[in-house]
C-alpha cells in the first residue's frame, strides 16, 4: 500500500519530459531567495511575523513530504514532533539558559532520534495502519506534555523571550527571526534536494512505488524507511523549535491533533513529492484560514473546506503539479521544445 497513486507517477514522468531547463530553474530559485531577502524590509512587522510562520511551516511540510510524498508513508502525527522540537527549545532556554542558537540543531537531532526509534516498530505497519499509529502519537503528546509538569510547565506552558538581535544588526526582532528562519529553510532545502535527487531519493521513490521490486534491487527497505522517518521528524522538530522562538511561548494546546492534519493538508495542496510544494503548501496553511475568516465569520471552516475542494479539483497534483503543467503548456505554445 503506497500513497503514490498512478497519477502521481504519471505526473512525475510527464514532468520529467518537459522539465524546466536547469539554468531557468536556478534563476528562479535565486530570484525567489532574493525576494525572500528583500521581503521583510518591504512589509510591516506583523506581515514579517506571518512570513516567518510560512517559513516554519515550509520546513515542517518538507519534512512530512519526504516521508509521505517521496517514501509513501502516511503520518497523521507530525504535530507531535513539532511539539517535541518546540518544547526542546523552550526547556533548554528556560531551565538551562542555553543560547537559543544551539537549541535549534539539538531539537532537530532529538526529533531525528525519536522519529528513527518510532520508525522501527512502525515499519511493521503500512499505509493506513501507520497513519493510525502516528495519529495516536498526535493524540498522546499534548497529554504527556501536561503530565511532566515540572519540565513543561503543564497546561500553562513556558513563556520565553524573543531572541535579541546580535552584533547590533540594524534589524527588528521580527526581521531577525525571519532571517534565522530563512537561513534554516535554505540549509534544509538544499540538504533535502541533495538527498532526494540522487541514489537515496530514487531508493525512497522505489520503495514507495514498488516495495518488492525495490527489495529485489538490493535496497534495504527497512533501514531506508526508518531513516526517512527520522529525517522527516528531524525537519519537523527544527520547525517546531523555530516556532517556539517565534511565538515565544509553548503550551500543549498549540499542538493538538488538528495541527498534524493541517500539515498533511499542506503537503497535498502544495504538491506531493515536490520540494517547492512545501512552500506553496506553507502559504496555503498560513493564509487560507485567515481569508476564510475574512469572507465569513460565521462559518470560516466551511469556506476553508470549499477552498480545499476547489484546489483539489483544479489542481489534482497540488500547486507544484499545476505549475509544472502550466510550464509544459507554455513550452508547447511557444514552440521551444524540451531540451532532453
Amino acid at each position, binding site marked *: 500500500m503506497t500513497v503514490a497513486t498512478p497519477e502521481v507517477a504519471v505526473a512525475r514522468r510527464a514532468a520529467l519530459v518537459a522539465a524546466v531547463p536547469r539554468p531557468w530553474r536556478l534563476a528562479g530559485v535565486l530570484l525567489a531567495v532574493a525576494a525572500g531577502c528583500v521581503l521583510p524590509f518591504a512589509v*510591516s*512587522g*506583523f506581515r514579517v*511575523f*506571518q512570513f516567518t*510562520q510560512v517559513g516554519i511551516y515550509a520546513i515542517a511540510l518538507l519534512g512530512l513530504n519526504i516521508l509521505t510524498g517521496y517514501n509513501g508513508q502516511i503520518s497523521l502525527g507530525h504535530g507531535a514532533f513539532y511539539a517535541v522540537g518546540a518544547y526542546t527549545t523552550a526547556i533548554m532556554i528556560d531551565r538551562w539558559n542555553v543560547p537559543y542558537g544551539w537549541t535549534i540543531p539539538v531539537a532537530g537531532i532529538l526529533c531525528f532520534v525519536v522519529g528513527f526509534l518510532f520508525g522501527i516498530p512502525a515499519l511493521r505497519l503500512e499505509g493506513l495502519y501507520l497513519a493510525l499509529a502516528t495519529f495516536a502519537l498526535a493524540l498522546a503528546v499534548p*497529554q504527556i506534555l*501536561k*503530565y511532566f*509538569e515540572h519540565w513543561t510547565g*503543564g*497546561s*500553562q*506552558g513556558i*513563556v520565553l*523571550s524573543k531572541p535579541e538581535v546580535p552584533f547590533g544588526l540594524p534589524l527588528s526582532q521580527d526581521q531577525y527571526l525571519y532571517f534565522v528562519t530563512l537561513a534554516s529553510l535554505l540549509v534544509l532545502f538544499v540538504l533535502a534536494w541533495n538527498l532526494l535527487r540522487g541514489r537515496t531519493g530514487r531508493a525512497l521513490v522505489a520503495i514507495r512505488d514498488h516495495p518488492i521490486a525495490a527489495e529485489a534491487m538490493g535496497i534495504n527497505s527497512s533501514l531506508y524507511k526508518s531513516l526517512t522517518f527520522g529525517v522527516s521528524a528531524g525537519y519537523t522538530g527544527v520547525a517546531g523549535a523555530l*516556532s517556539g522562538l517565534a*511565538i*515565544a*511561548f*509553548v*503550551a*500543549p*494546546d*498549540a499542538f*493538538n491533533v*488538528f495541527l498534524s492534519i493541517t500539515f498533511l493538508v499542506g503537503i497535498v495542496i502544495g504538491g506531493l513529492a515536490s520540494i517547492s510544494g512545501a512552500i506553496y503548501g506553507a502559504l496555503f496553511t498560513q493564509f487560507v484560514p485567515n481569508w476564510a*475568516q475574512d469572507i465569513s*465569520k460565521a462559518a*470560516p*471552516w466551511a469556506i476553508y473546506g470549499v477552498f480545499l475542494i476547489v484546489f483539489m479539483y483544479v489542481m489534482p497534483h497540488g500547486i507544484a503539479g499545476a505549475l509544472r503543467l502550466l510550464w509544459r503548456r507554455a513550452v508547447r505554445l511557444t514552440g521551444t521544445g524540451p531540451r532532453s
Partner: protein
Amino acid sequence: MHWTSRALALLLTLALGLGLAASPAGAQTPGVTATEIKIGNTNPYSGPASAYGTIGKVIAAYFKKVNDEGGINGRKINFISYDDSYSPPKTVEMVRRLVEQDQVAFVFQTLGTPTNSAIHKYMNQQKVPHLFVATGATKWGDPKNFPWTIGWQPTYQAEGKIYAQYVLKNVPNAKVGILYQNDDYGKDYLKGFKDGLGDAAKKIVVLEQSYEVTDPTIDSQIVNLKNSGANVFFNITIPKFAVQAIKKSHDIGWRPLHLLNNVSSSVAVVLKPAGLEASKDIITARYLKDPTDPQWKNDPGYKDWVAFMQKYYPDGSLLDDFNVYGYSVAQSMVHVLRQCGNDLSRANIMKQAASIKDLALPMLLPGIKINTGPDDYYPIEQEQLARFDGERWVNFGEVYDASKK
C-alpha cells in the same frame, strides 16, 4: 574611567529614548477617531473550546445595542473579533494583526489562560491595554510587572479564600479533606483556600488528595478522604471528575459538608448526571445570576437581559451562563469607556479600567460590586454562597469578599 563615561552615555541615551517614547501621549490614539473606537478581541469560535465562542458573540451583540443607542460620547464601537481556536500561536498572530494592522485602541476579553499567556508580554511591551481577560488564573492581577493587563472574573484563589472564610465562621470542629486537580488550576484553588484559613490550615486540613486530569477515576481518593475522618470536603475538580466524586461519596455513605468549586457548578452538566439526590446540600460560590434560576423571573435585570437577547442575539441560548457572563463583561467595558470621557489615550483607558468604584451590574448577584485600583487589578472579588436544594441553587448568607481577611 572610560567605561563609566560610556555607561553614562548609554544611560542618557536610554533615558532620552524613554522620554521620547513617553512624550507622544497626547497624540492620537490608534483606533480612536471622533466617531469610532476600535476594540480587538480573540475567541475560540472553532476548535475544542468552541463552547466559549458564544461569549464573543454576545459581546458583539451588546456593543451593537450600545451603538444603536448612540454609542459612547458619540463614538460607535467597532468590535473586531477573530477566531483563535484556543491555539496560542494563532492568538499571537491574531492579536498582532489587531494591534499592528487593524490598529485597535486596545484588546478586550481575549479568552483562555494559555492563549492569554502567549500575548501577555507582547501587550505589555507594546503598552496596549489588555482588558478584562477571560480566565480565572491569578497572574493577570500583577500591576507591578504587567501594568497593561487586567482580569475580570473572580480568580480561583479568591474563590478558595471565600470557602475558607465560610468554614472558619460556620464549622466549629472542621476537619477538611481536599481533592484537587494536579495543575495550576487546582493549585490556585488550594492556595487560596489555605491562605484564607491562615495559621489554622495545618490543623484544619486533615488530608489532601490530588488526581491527574488523565486519570480514569478518582474512587480511591474519595475512599481515602472518607477514611481520614474529614467532615468537610473541598472538591476542586472539573465537571467529569466532579460527577464521579459526588456519586462515589454518596455511594459509600460519606456525607460531609461538600464545597464544590464554581467550575463544576452547572446543574445540567454536573449535578443532574451525578444524581440530584446525591447533589443535595452541596455548596458553591457564585457571582452571576443563574439564568435558569426561577427566583430571578421578575427581576428587572433579568428581564432586560432577556429582552436584549431576543432582540440582538436571538440565536443565543437563554439557559447559558456564558451569555450572562459576556453581557456583564461588555457592560463593564462600556462603563470604563464612559468613565474615560474624551481622553481615550491608551494610558487613560488603562487608568480608568483600574479606577472602577462600586460598580453594580444588573446580572451580578445583588450586593456584588466591581472595584479596582492602581494596586488592585482584580475587578470581581466578591461571591455569594449557594446551596443546592435538589433542584436549583439557593443563595444564602452574606456576600463574601476575598480581598478582606
